[in-house]
């Protein structure tokens, strides 16, 4: 009784050679998952990771590229989803470098201190501005603060009289027959959104019919495509498809957003760009981070900032920053 079964089974196994493939899968799986057990970052692995502002994404990438051409063993990892993600990531410990297009709020700083016991190192790395843009053929050239607020907000905290919803309500665009002003802006997590709310809307509330784009370049592209649009974006995304408006300062003169007025801070919505670093006091940073910070504050790094559309820091600010790390 035993013999025939046996022959049958050998016969079967020769015709179907995959008898152990389940086992093989398990082995393959083990072989592939096994490295996980040993994978640990070597002390000098040199990974340069940053999470934060997507306004600064291009800038961080270019700095990073320059660094990697010099030190090919340095690894880059950038995640850019908005300034608000930087403090989160710094506190959660998912990164050491947090580029932000606005200063940290007191809450964010407190959260960091609560987690680590020391404040994050704050570096100014370039100058930037928020621009209000319209379609390139739009005759509008200047806006007052009250007008900006009346256009973008529901609360009119800056003292505008009535909401401005249509192009006819602005004197310069009485003949711009495109009806409603279609508004474009950034999503909630971006520092651009937060800063515009604070500085241009005097802390008021945004209208809820503003199209929220995931990036400043998307705002500029959208405004450049439609004649009835107005939006706010970062200075570095300015292209000839749109026109950046001059804004009145407190003394009542209209200041155009250009390199000089942004660098000096005369343009009302200009700002610094920051890099927050998780550096425990008394400890030195890992070499790639050190090299990165040195590059940023060098003449070359500032020229790269200019090539990405930002405005370099003045020499006094650079010297001030260099003393810190």
């Amino acid at each position, binding site marked *: 009784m035993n013999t025939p079964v046996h022959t049958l089974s050998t016969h079967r196994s020769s015709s179907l050679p995959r008898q152990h493939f389940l086992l093989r899968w398990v082995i393959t799986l083990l072989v592939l998952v096994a490295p996980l057990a040993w994978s640990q970052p070597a002390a000098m692995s040199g990974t340069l990771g940053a999470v934060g502002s997507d306004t600064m994404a291009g800038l961080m990438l270019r700095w990073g590229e320059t660094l990697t051409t010099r030190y090919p063993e340095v690894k880059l990892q950038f*995640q850019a989803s908005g300034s608000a993600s930087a403090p989160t990531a710094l506190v*959660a410990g998912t990164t050491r470098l947090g580029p932000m297009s606005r200063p940290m709020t007191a809450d964010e700083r407190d959260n960091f201190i609560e987690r680590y016991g020391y404040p994050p190192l704050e570096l100014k790395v370039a100058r930037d501005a928020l621009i209000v843009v319209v379609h390139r053929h739009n005759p509008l050239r200047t806006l007052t603060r009250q007008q900006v607020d009346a256009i973008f907000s529901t609360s009119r905290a800056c003292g505008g009289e009535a909401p401005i919803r249509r192009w006819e309500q602005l004197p310069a665009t009485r003949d711009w027959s495109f*009806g409603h002003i279609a508004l474009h802006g950034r999503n909630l997590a971006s520092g651009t959104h937060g800063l515009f709310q604070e500085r241009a809307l005097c802390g008021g509330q945004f209208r809820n019919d503003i*199209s929220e784009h995931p990036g400043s370049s998307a705002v500029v592209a959208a405004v450049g495509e439609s004649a009835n649009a107005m939006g706010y974006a970062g200075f570095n995304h300015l292209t000839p498809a749109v026109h950046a408006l001059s804004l009145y300062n407190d003394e009542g003169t209209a200041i155009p957003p250009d390199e000089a007025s942004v660098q000096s801070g005369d343009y009302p919505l200009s700002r610094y760009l920051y890099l927050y670093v998780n550096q425990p006091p008394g400890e030195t940073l890992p070499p790639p981070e050190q090299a990165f910070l040195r590059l940023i504050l060098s003449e070359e790094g500032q020229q790269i900032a200019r090539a990405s559309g930002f405005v370099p820091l003045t020499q006094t600010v650079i010297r001030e920053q260099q003393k810190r790390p």
Partner: protein
Amino acid sequence: MTLPRLNSSRQPLRLLRDRVATGLITAGGVGVLLAILAIGVFLVWETLPLLAIGDTLALAKLSPLAWGTLKAALAALLFAIPVALGAAIYSALFMSARLRSRIKPALEMMEAIPGVVVGFIAGLILAPWVERHLASALVLIIWLPLSAALAGLLWQLAKTRLRRRLPLSWAGLWLIPWLAFMVAIALWLAPWLELHWLGGDLRQLLDQRYGMDYATRNALIVGIAMGFAVIPSIYSLAEDALADVPPTLIEGAQALGASRWQALWKVALVAAGPGIFSAIMIGAGRAVGETMIVLMASGNTALFSASPFEGMRSMTAAIAIELPEASPGGQTYHLLILAALVLFIFTFLVNTLAEVVRQRLRRRYRQIGGTL
């Protein structure tokens, strides 16, 4: 399952191996099923803190998102249902078998096109084009069905020889150049129509007469783009349901004097009704859950507006943009997870409904059709 007893020396080893293997498989299988179950458990667990607070804030924040999701899905279905069902009816009942074996995989291939590609085309290419040529786009929506009907009329008037060359059973293919030609004509004529019938500018007219806003990325764009993505899933299931209608039913109806269209309308569609219903349900589930297309083509404005020319913000897009920034444990984090839970429950229910209906339908066919 009882195994035959063999008196062999390898017997205990084999039985042991068998038992161990069965145990392993069971453990693995149950483990996988538990992992799947964990999704639901996790979502519920993470939203519990929110429900404990029980505030109305969550509702206030979620309701525009829920509305946006529904609006986007509705717009997509409005476009997808007629096209997908039309295509399903045609390919199940009129198309030649040879053509069908080629066309069906081609249409199902549409489903494979990644949402991010469709979203990019819709958001950056289609949306600005439609904004500049709104009248043309609207004319096209009316013009395309008309031109199909025109093709039918011309065909019935045509000579027999031509008709034999261009049979209805191949119309799915030879109508393509016809439609392309008609689209070209419409695009050429539309500016003229806009000028003479609508007094120059349709958008100005909409604004002045009806006070309607126009946003570049709006429900119309999302409807077309997401409709494109949903068509294949509705088509595929509806076509299966129609093709599975026992032929005896249609033949019987025709034998009793019904025309082919009557047989289709009164018999085949009714018989396949539940299948078509489940196809639409699956399509709705897909439309509600689609992320990248809505994210890239909707403008992300959290509005309560029913206008087809205004944008919306869906739950999926909100999760994709905001969750990476939300600090774990914070209120936004829990809120977004609540949105995920709502999506999960909704699609799960919709799919279960579709599945149950389909299984019941299969049983019914078995009763009517005998052999199926």
